[in-house]
């Protein structure tokens, strides 16, 4: 029998008892709607979680200089002076998985305002991209410094809430001038409160300024790095002797280089190094690619041979990213369970009503068989009714689900994302629920004996 007739018959049978069809299909409607809403809200929640994780710095990849060993004494990681701002620019330019790069120059210094002073945990010289990486763009007050101010090494800074509390005590800091090692900085912005990080360190105890300013105006004297040996050499004469105490004692405490030795020895190269480079991968799953790109780029830029070890090290937030992945995974599985349960319940409702319908229409089945319907025809008729019921339910469920996820996104302000996969899955699942749960009643109908069916009252 043609599909057209089968569908026409099925729709006629369903229209005969609209109320019952509607109530039966309600199970599927609710099931599918729940699945769609859950999937979409779940997707939204996943996006939100990822965003939160990202603001915690889940996507950040930190590049630190390597360790140096001087006469067997290891200085520890970060002591080498081999990361340059040019490295940072090159990473930005040549590594596609990296979205943002910010060089960082650290300092530890006293900050003075009026009669108050404070030593912030972090004084970072960086670029405005630092705020993008840390997801810290919306300022509490004022505004961030610009790339232009970085190039100018302007004496401007933005400060965290803790610093505000310690230095300004209720005053608005924007526009005020503070001093760091006697360098005058204008406060142009206040960062939003971020609280402690995972290790319990106060993230708001921070002062950010253009790295050029920190590098050349603040740190230059104290953390001059490569120059340390040469500058200390000047004073070495005084330390290398005990003649302040024993003026007659001419013996040196330790060996000093002769003038010839000093000219022979390679002078420390002075270039503007940075203490670390902060980068952000485009997304959590791009982190390994980002690490690989950065690593090969820096090896190339630092002219390392294959046999040489890296003169830098790269860190990512493995712990956080792992948590993120497992959270998303768990969420998907949970939603799948909910979906299965609601659809099974709906399917049982369909089966129940189809069984009632078969019993009710026993005479009709008998008649159809008498005039020549084969068992297959009867099976197809009832199966198509069940599937049609489920598909109708599925369609309404999709609409209802879309609507409710829209409402949720409006009312609760959760980000919801339209999930095409969920819609496709809902259609397939409702059709297969129809076939699965419609099959038994339809099979029962097709096995009826026409004689008994015709005699059925």
């Amino acid at each position, binding site marked *: 029998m043609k599909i057209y007739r089968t569908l026409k018959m099925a729709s006629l049978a369903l229209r005969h008892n609209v109320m019952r069809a509607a109530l039966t299909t309600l199970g599927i409607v609710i099931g599918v709607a729940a699945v769609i809403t859950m999937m979409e809200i779940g997707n939204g929640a996943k996006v939100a979680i990822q965003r939160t994780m990202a603001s915690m710095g889940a996507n950040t990849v930190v590049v630190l200089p390597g360790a140096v060993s001087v006469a067997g004494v290891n200085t520890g990681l970060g002591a080498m002076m081999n990361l340059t701002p040019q490295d940072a620019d090159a990473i930005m330019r040549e590594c596609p998985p990296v979205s943002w790069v910010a060089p960082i120059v650290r300092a530890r210094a006293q900050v003075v305002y009026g009669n108050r002073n404070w030593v912030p945990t972090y004084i970072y010289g960086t670029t405005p991209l630092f705020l993008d990486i840390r997801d810290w763009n919306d300022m509490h007050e004022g505004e961030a410094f610009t790339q232009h101010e970085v190039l100018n090494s302007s004496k401007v800074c933005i400060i965290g809430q803790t610093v505000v509390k310690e230095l300004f005590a209720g005053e608005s800091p924007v526009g005020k001038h503070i001093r760091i090692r006697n360098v005058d900085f204008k406060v142009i912005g206040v960062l939003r409160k971020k609280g402690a990080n995972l290790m319990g360190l106060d993230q708001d105890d921070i002062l950010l300024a253009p790295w050029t300013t920190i590098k050349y105006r603040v740190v230059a004297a104290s953390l001059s790095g490569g120059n340390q040996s040469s500058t200390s050499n000047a004073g070495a004469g005084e330390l290398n002797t005990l003649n302040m105490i024993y003026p007659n004692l001419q013996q040196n405490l330790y060996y000093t280089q002769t003038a010839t030795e000093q000219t022979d020895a390679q002078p420390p190269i002075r270039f503007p190094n940075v203490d670390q480079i902060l980068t952000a991968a485009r997304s959590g799953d791009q982190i390994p690619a980002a690490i690989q790109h950065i690593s090969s780029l820096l090896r190339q830029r630092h002219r390392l041979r294959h046999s040489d070890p890296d003169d830098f090290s790269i860190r990512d937030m493995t712990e956080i990213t792992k948590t993120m992945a497992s959270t998303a995974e768990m969420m998907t599985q949970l939603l799948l369970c909910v979906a299965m349960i609601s659809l099974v319940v709906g399917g049982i409702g369909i089966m129940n009503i189809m069984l009632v319908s078969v019993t009710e229409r026993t*005479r009709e089945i008998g008649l*159809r068989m008498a005039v*020549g319907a084969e068992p297959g025809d009867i099976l197809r008729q009832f199966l198509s009714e069940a599937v049609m019921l489920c598909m109708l339910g599925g369609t309404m469920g999709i609409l209802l689900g879309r609507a409710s996820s829209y409402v949720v996104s409006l009312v609760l302000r959760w980000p919801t994302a339209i999930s095409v996969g969920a819609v496709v899955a809902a259609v397939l699942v409702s059709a297969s629920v129809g076939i699965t749960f419609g099959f038994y009643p339809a099979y029962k109908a097709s096995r009826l004996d026409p004689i008994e069916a015709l005699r059925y009252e």
Partner: protein
Amino acid sequence: MDLIELNNVCKTYHLGELDLPVLKGISMQVARAEYVALMGASGSGKSTLMNILGCLDRPTSGEYRLDGREISGLTAKERARLRNRMIGFVFQSFNLLPRMTALENVLMPLAYCRDNLTEGEMERRSAEMLEKVGLAHRIHHKPLQLSGGEQQRVAIARSLVNRPQVLFADEPTGNLDSRTSEEILQLFQQLNSEDRITLIIVTHDPGVARHAQRTIRIMDGLIESGASSSGAGAGVP
């Protein structure tokens, strides 16, 4: 050759351990275009015989030839096709589907025939058939909007729409008053004489049986009289 040939047909129902023989060896013939009445008291086995004749049921033993073809070995599916092509049924309680119009009710057997008729063709044939039974003006009425006689006419149209060779009517006038009964019987007469359709009517009303050319009487699963038309002589026009 006779259209219907039964040769020592037996039917036994098994109720648990109990064997219940209903038909105990029926042999009969019905010729093409014959009009036969099947009579018997209730419990005599006439309904069982009717079911076997109508290919709804299979005999436990014996031979049944319909149009020269052995039927007793056919599967359910083959019998369904055979019923669709060769046999029309008219029931006492009409058995129309209440939610369909007269036209759709008549059309139903065509939907199960595997001729790949178009929708238009099916509807045309159904409408023609309704016209033939005198219901041209009631095509789009639902059964509940029709009188008993009209309903039975729709049922007759339905049974004829696939141009069957045999028409089985099981107490076709049982639910009708005497006037409409007469009309229906007249219609049967007309179908038999004009369209040469073989008619077998089950009844226990002698008045109905009188319209037939021959009456087969059944008693306790055996044929009492009228097993073949040869004895009755010129039954066939």
